């Protein structure tokens, strides 16, 4: 009945396709949302998608296995730094412009 789903957790392709879907969702959110914090959350989703791909490659290749975990941990730390700075910038802009919507940030255009 569900023969296509047999051993799906043992196939590299399933993880990579999932990671691609998550990355595409994140890129849609980044391009389409008006709220600056929503855009930052979409960036977090994309970083997580990349991490999932790294872990998937590590899980199915003996020569990459431990290194993939190291890379993923460093990516997580870098993402934390990015989120901190991004949110601080959003809060600083909000204090000046009184809005979190990015299409109203037009000071450089005038």
């Amino acid at each position: 009945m569900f023969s296509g789903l047999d051993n799906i957790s043992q196939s590299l392709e399933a993880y990579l396709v999932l990671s691609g879907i998550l990355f595409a969702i994140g890129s849609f959110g980044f391009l389409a949302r008006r709220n600056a914090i929503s855009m930052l959350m979409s960036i977090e989703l994309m970083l997580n998608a990349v991490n999932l791909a790294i872990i998937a490659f590590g899980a199915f290749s003996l020569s990459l296995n431990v290194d993939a975990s190291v890379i993923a941990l460093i990516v997580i730390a870098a993402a934390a730094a990015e989120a901190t700075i991004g949110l601080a910038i959003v809060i600083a802009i909000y204090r000046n412009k009184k809005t979190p919507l990015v299409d109203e940030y037009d000071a450089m255009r005038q």
Partner: protein
Amino acid sequence: MTLPETIPLLGFGWDDLLFLTFAAAMVVAALLVVTMRDIIRCGLAMIIAFAALAGLYVIAGAPVVAAAQVLVYIGAISVLVLFAIMLTQSKIGTRELVFQTQAVPAAIASVLLALLIGLVVVATDWPEAGARIWTDTTELAMRLFDQYVLPFEVVSVLLLAAVIGAVYLAKRDRGEAD
């Protein structure tokens, strides 16, 4: 009592059921993050997506990364995002448009991107892909603090710089009204 080898009635293994459950939860939560109107709910859906992803890391055999995911993403980044939402949202904000004018082209481009990635992944013959391996935590620790000790230290300096920079950016200037 031990569980049977495969799930009764469905006929595939427990790992596969968990994988499908976490994958579905993650995709649905991620879609909610990018489409919901109330941004606080977007933040809460993001926590669900991160938790499902931590489960996927465990199934992929990387328990240390899963633990770091729970600690850093669910514990730290989500709380940071929720606090930033509470600092910057007004009641009027939820009534305004959620999407920019380029939302439809963005949706088309994202679907094309997902299809392209899926096509490439399926069409490629991954030569090294063997059986799934569990990451040995002891070896990971040895590698992290021996071969990769320089990136580790650089990341800690990066985090310190980020924290100081964030405090500097977000602090209120002395004498600023409001």
